[in-house]
């Protein structure tokens, strides 16, 4: 259109040497600048949703509503106040929600709206590396969210030991990662976003309410309690609470960890095969 008098010629000489093998770790590492830039752009907005809403929950449920609840350690799984009981469960439930929100619309957006995955997979990057980088970003968010949340609540005197809270945070991150992998696999297969509404209403919301975050699952009766213990979130809530309250039953902690790790591994396969089928056809 405009005249181009003295434009320097573009260097088109061949760049990298062909045939270099791209390792898994290297493939993931090459995406760090992308996720770092996305984080830089979005962290302000996510601060609000990450910390403010659960903080409001803690105040409303833990402090105000909890004031009506008798702090009986026998009935509150070892907690001496309802606040101490609800906080570790609430952070675990919040980890689930963060994981789900990071692996639903964002994954679908990268598949079909922005088509970022398509552009990534036109490079030497491969599907497992792309999935891993995205899930690592979600994991990093979970670590930050759960850690800051724990630090904010420490002055309330809800933690019983110095070593419990870090392990509780790890538990919360673990349950978050488990949900991230499972939901990522679901999103990778989903054709349109209406499915997310069903996931939130029939999956996430009931889990949030009935997996022991707000009351001991034994309150649900024998059958209800066992049903609750079959949900992945309960394993995270229980683990998180046992560490936070320094009230650990080690064999049960082992079961909780094993279940979550196993589900996360299943979720990882499910995610990779889902994106592979979707993008490489």
């Amino acid at each position, binding site marked *: 259109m405009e005249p181009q008098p003295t*434009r*320097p010629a573009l260097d088109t000489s061949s760049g990298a040497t*062909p045939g270099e093998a791209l390792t898994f770790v290297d493939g993931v590492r090459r995406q760090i600048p992308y996720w770092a830039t*996305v984080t830089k752009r979005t962290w302000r907005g996510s601060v609000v949703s990450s910390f403010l809403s659960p903080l409001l929950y803690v105040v409303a449920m833990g402090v105000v509503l909890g004031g009506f609840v008798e702090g009986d350690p026998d009935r509150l799984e070892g907690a001496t106040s309802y606040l101490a009981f609800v906080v570790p469960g609430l952070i675990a439930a919040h980890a689930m929600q963060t994981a789900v929100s990071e692996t639903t619309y964002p994954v679908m957006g990268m598949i079909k709206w922005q088509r970022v995955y398509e*552009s990534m997979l036109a*490079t*030497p990057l491969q599907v497992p590396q792309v999935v891993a980088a995205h899930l690592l970003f979600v994991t990093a968010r979970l670590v930050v969210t759960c850690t800051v949340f724990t630090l904010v609540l420490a002055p309330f005197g809800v933690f019983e030991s110095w070593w419990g809270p870090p392990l509780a945070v790890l538990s919360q991150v673990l349950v978050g990662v488990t949900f991230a992998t499972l939901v990522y696999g679901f999103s990778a297969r989903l054709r349109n976003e209406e499915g997310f509404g069903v996931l939130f209403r029939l999956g996430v919301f009931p889990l949030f309410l009935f997996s022991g975050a707000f009351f001991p699952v034994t309150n649900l009766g024998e059958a209800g309690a066992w049903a609750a213990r079959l949900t992945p979130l309960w394993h995270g809530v229980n683990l998180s609470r046992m560490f936070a309250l320094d009230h650990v039953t080690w064999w049960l902690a082992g079961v909780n960890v094993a279940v979550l790790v196993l589900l996360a591994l299943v979720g990882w396969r499910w995610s990779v095969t889902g994106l592979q089928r979707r993008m490489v056809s």
Partner: protein
Amino acid sequence: MTPETATSAESMILARGLRKSFGPFEAVKGIDVEVRRGEAFGFLGPNGAGKSSTMRMVAAVSPVTGGTLRILGRDPATEGPAIRARLGVCPQEDTLDSELNVRDNLVIYGRYFGTARREAEQRADELLDFVQLTDKAGARVENLSGGMKRRLTIARSLVNRPDLLLLDEPTTGLDPQARHVLWDRLFRLKQAGVTLVLTTHYMDEAEQLCDRLVVMDKGLIVAEGSPLDLIRRHSTREVAELRFGLAEEGTGHDVLAEKVADLGDRVEALPDRLLVYSADGEEVVAKVHERGLRPVATLVRRSTLEDVFLRLTGRTLVD
């Protein structure tokens, strides 16, 4: 184009009996293609001809169903990442990241190829200059016009200094100004020795850019050659277009076609006009008048690739 490139030939793409199926649907039904270094090669065809499926296989993102395919001498089934490291891909629909600004789209994309940060930034600035977007470096992608997005996509496809550049309908949806700017950039790349492979359904684009092309229809190659070759082989030198006032003649163009059938190599009756394919269009028009026929409008023009295309792939609409 030049004899040197033809003799120092090295296959950038070599396909033999290449097939692609999606379930029971056969998108590509066995095609043979060879693209040599430095060539500008085109895939032409109507929608659904199998061009994009072929391009995706060549881009090493879609597994081959049957036949053999070698890209840069390598097998995409086993060496996908190594092949993609040497390709530039400009997809049909923009896949720019609107989370990132214009320059970051290039820098971060360069990092996927393993380019160090400093080098990726330097390359990004070079490319922004090349596609005339330097003053938009900090802009959000969503604020760019269609033509600017396309230029940015082309810039992005060059971050790794590819040996082979794949362009899937590079100018679809652009206004004429934007198309010409883009053609100019692509022409410069071609002159710089980059091998271009493009799909298009714009015949003028193919004539402008392609040294050689294939016409695809329903998953098969129906013609192959240079634009001039194809015109020579599948059409006549000129076309006389005759439009009759149908009310006066009291009949349709298809009936009139019979009256002039002997005047050209081929006569095609369209609802609004007759096309008479002949070496000498003026002579056709003169003879039509001699026979007492009175077209209300006549046009004599050279055959174009579009005539070839329509002849080979038909005039039926494909959605």
